[in-house]
């Protein structure tokens, strides 16, 4: 399998512009997570989906952030309007519950990340 695929790998934009980050999870995985990494806060969970349904978005910092998962193979994280403090590396990760008994915390499969710089 190709793994979790994220695009773009790098994005440089100006304050106020809309940013859309994309993620293709591993086929068959029914959980998808969006994380943000910064020096100050480390890896923070923003939102996660189960079977394409958003389950917990309590980590989304502001209304400027939104995420969708229109189907099992695609998710987007959108920032509108973007601000310099949004500069970070954004990771997508996926995993399967496997047995269907509920997710056992463990091996998330991460993409390579999208490095966002907002000027």
């Amino acid at each position, binding site marked *: 399998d190709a793994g979790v695929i994220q695009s773009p790998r790098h994005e440089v934009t100006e304050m106020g512009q809309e940013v859309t980050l994309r993620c293709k999870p591993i086929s068959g995985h029914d959980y998808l997570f969006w994380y943000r990494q910064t*020096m100050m806060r480390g890896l923070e*969970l923003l939102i996660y989906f*189960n079977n394409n349904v958003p*389950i917990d978005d309590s980590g989304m910092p502001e209304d400027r952030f939104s995420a969708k998962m229109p189907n099992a193979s695609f998710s987007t994280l959108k920032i509108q309007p973007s601000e310099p403090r949004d500069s970070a590396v954004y990771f997508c990760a996926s995993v399967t519950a496997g047995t269907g008994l509920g997710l056992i*915390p463990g091996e998330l499969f*991460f993409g390579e990340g999208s490095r966002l710089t907002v000027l």
Partner: protein
Amino acid sequence: DQQVKQNSPSLSVQEGRISILNCDYTNSMFDYFLWYKKYPAEGPTFLISISSIKDKNEDGRFTVFLNKSAKHLSLHIVPSQPGDSAVYFCAAATQGGSEKLVFGKGTKLTVNP
């Protein structure tokens, strides 16, 4: 408020010696702990985990120790190799169905040849 703390931002060791990375947590509900390794320009990859019913888990050169009373865990790498140079993240979760891993800020390990 950081529930998972990695107080050492960086660690430098000589090749062949032991590397010890530490992690503390504050939430007593956590009962499952993981370590992830991250190379530059790559995503984190799972390394090793431990359940709270154990106090040690070993996988090759990597051993994780858990001290529940102290709310402390550590990752030992023996012997350390230059290829182990990476950022190591400690993470914690509850097994009661929570899908939310809580990560520390990471410790950058440098293994010098």
